[in-house]
């Protein structure tokens, strides 16, 4: 491992890509928090919107998974 600049780049890149997971976490928290705020304002409408909540969570999370995947690819596949 010593002195291999390509591997260094891989690991640094993987670390940078992992930041994306944190960003996705912010997004997921935003979706869930806004849902909760809305649900507390109007609890009767909350149940009908759980499907939308999960779809939103899935979309937000998918992008984090993409960055995680990039990290994994850099670590193990490149």
């Amino acid at each position, binding site marked *: 491992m010593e002195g*291999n600049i*390509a591997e260094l780049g891989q690991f640094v890149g993987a670390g940078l890509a992992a930041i994306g997971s944190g960003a996705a976490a912010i997004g997921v928290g935003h979706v869930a928090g806004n849902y909760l705020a809305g649900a507390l304002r109007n609890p009767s409408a909350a149940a009908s919107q759980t499907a939308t909540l999960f779809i939103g969570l899935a979309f937000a999370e998918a992008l984090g998974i993409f960055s995680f995947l990039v990290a*994994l*690819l850099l670590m*193990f*596949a*490149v």
Partner: protein
Amino acid sequence: MAGESTSVEHVADAAAHGAEASGAGMPQLDFSTFPNQIFWLLVTLVVIYIVMSRIALPRIGAVLAERAGTITNDIAAAEELKQRAEEAEAAYEKALADARAEAGRIVAEAKAEIQAQLDIELQKADAEISAKTAESEKAIADIRDGATKSVTQVAKSAAKDIVAALGGSADAATVTAAVNARMKG
């Protein structure tokens, strides 16, 4: 693996690192296993689809429909039973009210009868009492008259005897008059 397609140096590198480098690929990107996975996945999905669409789903759907039907029927039956119970209750209430009215009527009748009888008895008793009273008064009056007469007679004879003992003579008329006067006094 991606390593197979990279430069010669990298291949040499990988060879130098030995098994560690070659073993550290992502198994998900090992394309040699893809046909295997896809084949078995398709087999699995087809089996599940056949099992689901031919056996499981119709059966569960039928059970759910049957249950829904049973529940609807039971609710209808319960509704009918409730109605019947309400009818029975109404009939019972009516019977009770009738019985109450009848009882009231009987009580009133009995009361009236008793009152009438009581009145008759009271009248009879009153009459008897008044008759007895009259009789008693008459008896008392008789006794009083008798007593007065006796007293007068005794007084007359006593007065005559007293006058005779005193040595005088008294005629009956005078004594009688004197006694009568005294009796009245």
